[in-house]
Structures are given as structure tokens and as C-alpha cells.
């Protein structure tokens, strides 16, 4: 009897503890409701409010747009806006600012704000507040520490000037359209949890690294907001997102996987899929210090990126260069897959096929080491490349690492190095060209160098004419392609799924940092 009591007691204790913990966890949840004074005035209809529910793969601990990568998410949430934005066609368009002009030196920019621009509490946006925002970004974000060297001044209520130490033609694309440059009212009571901003939505409640609820900004300065609110659920598991869509708990999300895309495609009356080419590039570097020009040429003639794109189920589009072919700076060409040409190139280098079907010279088989990391389908690409190279007689060995940024990318210890990066940040080619083709870049360890290319990159750095910039970019990229220094495999597609009726959730923007806006509806 005593034992029965003991077991019953143990069970009761466990259950009580569970219930107690249950109550405890609720109080531990630091979900922040925006202060009532800062909450937007809503004139929501008495009928059922229009609340859109979206899933996001990332969530941050703060809504301070200037710090870390938070700005991407405050932009996605429709909370912050930048002075300029990048359109779906990659063009720079006015947003909080009406225009930007440079003086004759090319160093001083005059920015004119839209006089209608205002925060969600009705406070007008002033040049002085923008100046404070820009100065703060330089202070709190390591990626933009160079902004500290700018001279930023308010000229009048709606005009400011920015003077950079050097000619900086990409100020708008590199900085002023960047989501980290989202404008906040720096006098907000709580910048981390409920900043007052200018976007079509204001914070209703914020759970750090969790669910974010946004309410309609009824006082939005740039048109009427269609939705009453948006809820962003943090879900980084693909299966959970798929099932939340199937159970009707969310209305949409981006970055749909190939497997989920297939499921949604089978029910077009229930799900609307939008697939557009985006800017995340999968590419490889061919190490010129280890591979001869003939072998590099053979590799590039062998790798069939159309077959790779097919295998990846439509999540990527085959790439020719680092930028989309529709961009003015994406007009480059590369030879088509040519197996016979690849074999001829290898044989011209003195290699002979052995009995095992591999090329051999001086008793050594032609073997290349492909380094990759486990993300963005690079592991699948490495395997497919291995198979394709085997078919022409090149043996490929695979080396997978967890962190490319601290291993092969900075040591140069590879024959072929696979990598994935955002090639086009905001409608300008300079960032990517500078990161990949400069002699001082990390990828220079692959051995690519050309004095002419270096001069062209210098010219691109200071060129202010857009058409001339595109021409320079095309020339530089073509040089790298012709040198077989790189292989551009694919550009990730942005795949968005939504239930019928949902529109304007950033499905047509190639960038990840745009989602809801005033026109978003369901």
C-alpha cells in the first residue's frame, strides 16, 4: 500500500511540476506590447479584421533596424522604410526621399525628403532626424562603420547633404536603399521592441526571436493601408511551414523548397506559386594556381548548369554570369556545354585516357578536389559536378566543410571551391565585382588577376553614369569568364506561395528584405 501511495505521489508531483512550469513559462515570455501612446490609431471595421499571417525563416531579438541584420526584418514587417527603395526591375526609386543629386565633385549628395513623410504617430520626418539616423548607423553597425567618415548635415527641414571622403557613385544602392538604413524615430521609448517608424505597419506586439504582430498604420503618409494587420510567425522548419499552409494557419511564405513546390503545384486552386529569378548566386572558383588553363576550360565546358537547375527542382535558374540576364550589367556570354571540346582541351594538355576511364599523365590520374559547405544546395551541386566530370574522365574528390568562410575561402586550399552569396545587393554590380575579382579579395587566392581588369574595377568604383557602369561591369565579368577563373552555376529563384487572394507580399521583388507594404491585401 505504501508503495502504491509512493508511486501515486511521484506521478502527482511530476504533473504538478509540469503545470507549475507551464504557468512559469508564460510569465517568462518577454512578449512586448507596443506602448499604447505609440500604437497607431486604427479605424478597423467592426467586421472581421483583415489580418494576414505569414511565416518567416529568421527572427531577431530586436527591432532596432540599425543593428546587425534587423533592418531586413523591420523592412519585411512593413515597419521601417529607407530613403530610396529598389524596384522589382532593380531600379532605384524614391521613397522617404524625393530625389538625390551630386555636385560637380561627385562627393557631395543633396537629398530632398518627401515633405509628406511622417512617422506612425503623426510626427513629420525631418532632415535633422534623418541625419541622426545615418550617424547612428555608422556608430552601431560594424558593416557600415565607414559612414562615420561622412559629413552629414541638415540644410533645412527637408534637405540634407552627405559628403563622402571619396567619390562614391553607389551611395544610393550601397547605403540609402539598404534595409539597415531604415529610418526610425530615435526618440522612441523602446527602439529594441517598439520603435516608431514610417512604414505602413506599426508594432502591435513583439516577441524576441518569435512572433511579431503588426497593426495597420492608419496615419500612413504614402497611401491607404489595405490590411488591418499582419502576423509574422518565426518558423524555420520547412515541413512545419508546409503543414501550416495545408492546415490554413498561414497565408503564405517565401523560400519554398523544391519538395513543397511540387505539392503546392498539384493544387493550383488552393495555392498560388510565384517564381522569379533572384540575386543569390551559386558559383565556383577554379584555382589557377593548381589547374592549368586547359583543365579549367574543360571543367567549364563540362559542368552543365541546366541539368543542375533541373535536378534542383526549379529552385534555381541557370546562370551565365553573376547577375541576372535581364539586368543591364548581366549581358555576358559563356560557351555551351561541349563534352568533345572538354576532352580535346584536356588532351591538348598532354593527358591520356587510362583503362579506368580517367585522364592520366606521368602515372597520375587527373584528380580535382571540390570544396563545398552544407548549405544552399552546394552539397548537391558538388555531387552532380563530380558525376559530370567523371563522364569526361576527370576524377573529382569532394571535401565538405561546415564553415567555408574560415577554411578554404581564406586559405585557397582547393581546386574548385563552391560558394553562395548575394551577388546583387540593390541593383548595382560593384559590390560583387569588388568581392570576387579584385586582386585584394579573398577569392584572389584562386589566382585570378589581370591588370586590365583591376583598372576597369577602379574605373567602375568611381563611374557615375549608369550605362557606362553597366558596360564596365559586363567587360569585367566577361574577362573572368573568358579566363575560366570562375563557373557561375545558378541564381536562386525566389519562390513564394500564398493562398488565392493574397497579393503584394514581395513575391515579385528579387530581394529578400521586401515583403508587406500598403498595397498588400488578402
Amino acid at each position: 500500500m505504501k508503495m502504491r501511495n509512493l508511486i501515486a505521489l511521484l506521478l502527482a508531483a511530476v504533473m504538478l511540476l509540469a503545470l507549475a512550469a507551464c504557468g512559469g513559462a508564460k510569465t517568462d515570455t518577454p512578449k512586448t506590447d507596443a506602448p499604447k501612446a505609440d500604437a497607431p490609431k486604427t479605424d478597423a471595421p467592426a467586421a472581421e479584421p483583415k489580418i494576414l499571417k505569414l511565416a518567416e525563416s529568421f527572427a531577431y531579438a530586436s527591432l532596432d533596424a540599425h543593428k546587425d541584420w534587423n533592418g531586413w526584418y523591420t523592412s519585411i514587417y512593413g515597419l521601417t522604410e529607407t530613403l530610396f527603395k529598389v524596384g522589382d526591375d532593380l531600379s532605384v526609386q524614391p521613397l522617404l526621399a524625393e530625389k538625390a543629386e551630386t555636385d560637380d565633385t561627385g562627393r557631395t549628395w543633396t537629398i530632398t525628403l518627401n515633405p509628406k513623410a511622417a512617422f506612425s504617430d503623426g510626427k513629420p520626418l525631418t532632415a535633422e532626424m534623418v541625419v541622426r539616423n545615418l550617424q547612428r548607423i555608422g556608430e552601431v553597425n560594424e558593416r557600415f562603420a565607414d559612414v562615420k567618415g561622412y559629413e552629414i548635415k541638415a540644410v533645412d527641414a527637408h534637405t540634407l547633404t552627405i559628403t563622402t571622403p571619396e567619390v562614391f557613385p553607389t551611395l544610393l544602392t550601397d547605403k540609402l536603399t539598404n534595409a539597415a538604413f531604415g529610418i526610425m524615430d530615435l526618440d522612441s521609448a523602446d527602439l529594441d521592441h517598439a520603435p516608431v517608424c514610417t512604414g505602413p505597419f506599426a508594432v502591435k506586439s513583439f516577441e524576441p526571436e518569435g512572433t511579431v504582430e503588426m497593426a495597420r498604420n492608419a496615419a500612413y503618409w504614402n497611401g491607404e493601408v489595405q490590411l488591418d494587420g499582419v502576423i509574422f510567425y518565426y518558423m524555420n522548419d520547412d515541413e512545419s511551414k508546409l503543414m501550416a499552409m495545408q492546415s490554413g494557419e498561414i497565408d503564405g511564405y517565401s523560400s519554398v523548397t523544391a519538395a513543397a513546390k511540387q505539392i503546392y503545384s498539384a493544387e493550383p486552386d488552393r495555392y498560388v506559386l510565384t517564381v522569379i529569378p533572384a540575386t543569390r548566386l551559386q558559383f565556383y572558383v577554379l584555382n589557377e594556381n593548381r589547374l592549368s588553363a586547359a583543365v579549367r576550360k574543360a571543367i567549364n565546358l563540362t559542368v552543365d548548369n541546366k541539368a543542375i537547375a533541373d535536378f534542383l527542382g526549379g529552385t534555381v535558374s541557370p546562370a551565365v554570369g553573376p547577375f541576372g540576364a535581364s539586368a543591364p550589367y548581366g549581358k555576358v556570354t559563356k560557351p555551351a556545354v561541349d563534352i568533345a571540346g572538354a576532352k580535346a582541351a584536356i588532351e591538348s594538355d598532354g593527358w591520356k585516357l587510362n583503362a579506368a576511364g580517367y585522364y592520366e599523365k606521368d602515372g597520375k590520374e587527373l584528380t580535382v578536389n571540390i570544396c563545398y559547405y552544407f548549405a544552399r544546395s552546394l552539397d548537391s551541386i558538388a555531387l552532380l559536378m563530380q558525376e559530370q566530370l567523371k563522364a569526361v574522365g576527370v576524377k573529382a574528390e569532394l571535401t565538405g566543410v561546415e564553415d567555408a568562410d574560415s577554411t578554404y575561402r581564406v586559405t585557397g586550399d582547393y581546386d574548385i571551391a563552391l560558394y553562395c552569396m548575394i551577388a546583387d545587393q540593390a541593383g548595382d554590380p560593384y559590390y560583387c565585382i569588388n568581392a570576387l575579382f579584385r586582386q585584394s579579395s579573398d577569392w584572389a587566392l584562386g589566382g585570378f588577376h589581370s591588370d586590365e581588369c583591376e583598372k576597369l574595377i577602379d574605373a567602375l568604383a568611381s563611374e557615375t553614369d549608369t550605362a557606362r557602369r553597366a558596360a564596365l561591369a559586363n567587360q569585367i565579368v566577361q574577362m573572368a569568364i573568358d579566363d575560366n577563373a570562375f563557373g557561375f552555376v545558378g541564381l536562386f529563384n525566389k519562390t513564394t506561395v500564398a493562398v488565392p487572394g493574397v497579393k503584394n507580399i514581395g513575391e515579385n521583388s528579387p530581394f529578400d528584405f521586401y515583403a508587406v507594404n500598403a498595397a498588400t491585401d488578402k
Partner: protein
Amino acid sequence: MGNYIGKRMLHLVGILIALSFLTFLLMYLTPGDAATKKLNAQGIAVSQEVLDATRKAMGLDRPFLVQYGDWALGVLRGDLGDSYKDGQAVAAKLGKALGYTALLALGSLALSLLVSLPLSVLTALKKDTALDHIVRFFSFVANSLPNFLISVLLMYFLCVKARLLPVVADDSLRGLLLPALALSIPMTGRFLRQFRAEVLEQLSQSYVSGAVSRGVKRRYILWRNVLHNACIPILTVVGLQIGTLFGGSVVIETIFRWPGLGKMAMDAITNRDYPVIQGFVLFTSVVYVLVNLLTDIAYHWVDPRVRPE
């Protein structure tokens, strides 16, 4: 008993020093650091100058022993440091995640014990009957299924098909049910097999047949002797399981959006967030040692002949 507890606490200090040093060393030797992870988080490369400046600001350019010593001194002052990723205090992050993990751990443990304790006794008493075979089969299957598969199956049938529970759960009891169930199914399978084996072991002892032959009621033998004697190994199994549960479950927490310790630790490792990793290691070590200590004390409580050594 007091001496025994004091000795175990002294061991704990040694364990904490050794584990924290080893973890710090391993993270230091692993390629990549918090600065690279933070700056390249969204796939946009940064210049070497920016990277070097960030490393310097975070103190990552200092020698290993200086970094470790700095962290250890902070711990001695009661400061676990701040997260490299988001600047939040590690203690606060741990506290928040612990609430969720405790809820999930105790919820799933309660479910498992409620099912496995009575069923294991019943199947031991009904050994080799149809019921025994069925329960053994299901315990084998439950024990073999990986957590992610159980989670996805539960979600599909209970949320998508039957619409009984939400996929997008919150931290309410309703939200807890699915992750607790997913975590408890394999645990129940393990408990069933181990508890049943213990009860059977006791039932086969000569003192049971002796008691039966003396005319003692079977029910009395079962409750007074068999279960009493099976209790110590069962406590060991449960104690070890509690220690494991308090380490968090990455898979379950990720699938069900449950912000517990497992997910926090995994994110910290991915981001090379040393202060958070160190805090997690310290915390789980303390929990593991304390749970084992409590289990040992419970042995003595259940059977006073067992003296903690």
C-alpha cells in the same frame, strides 16, 4: 548525508572547470568565429578590414587563455556575459529557454510515466499474452522511430488531417501537447521495455514464489515487494532521462517552434556564440550532476539500506 552532498558539490566544481575549459578550447579550435558568422549572416561578403575591426571589438583577437580567463573571471563574479549574436545577457537567455525546456521536459515525462508505469506492470503480469505482445511491438516501434518522423507524422494527422491541434502553436497547454507527445512517444517505448524487464526480474526472484507458497496475496507481493524492489533501477532510468531532457531537444524544438535550450544551444553553436555555449554547458552540467545526486538520495529514501557512497 551532508558529507556526501558536500563531496559531490566539490566534484561538481572540478567538472565545471574541466568542461568549460574543454568546450572553450574546442570552440576556439573550430573554424569560424562569431564575427564572421555575424557579418556574413545573410550571404553578403564583408571586407577584411570590417571583419578585423569587428573581431577586435568583440575581443576575439586576444589569445585563447586571455579570452577564457576573462570569461571565467566574469563567471566567478556571477556574470555569464552577453551573447555575441544579439547582445542579450546569457543568464537571461538561459532563463527564458529553461522555462520552455522545463515545461516540455516535465510534460513529456509525465505523459511517458502515466502510460509506461501501469502498462509495464500489466504486461509483466500478463507475460506472453496477446496484450504483452501488442504492447511490446508498439514499444519497439516507438523506440525505433526518430523524433523528426514522429513529429511530422503527429503534425500531419493531428493538425492537417484531423485539425485537432494547431501547427502554429503558442506556449499554452494546448501548444505544449504536440511537442510533449512527440518527445514522450520514444521515451515511453524505452521506459516500457526497461520497466517491464525490471518487474519481470523481480517476479522471477525466489522471495516471490516463497511468499506465494506462504499464501501471501499476490496484490500485496506486487505492491509491497516487487514494485518496491524494482523502484531503484526505474529511478535510475528516469533520473538519467530527466538530465537528458533538460539539455533540450533540437529537433522537436525546431519543428514545433518551441524556444527551449536545445534550439538555443544549436543556434549558439552555429553562430559560434561562445558565451551562450559556455553558459549552456555550465547549466546542463549542473543539472546533470544535481539530478544524479537527487537520484542517489532518492535510492536511500526508497530503500534506507542503500547508503550513498
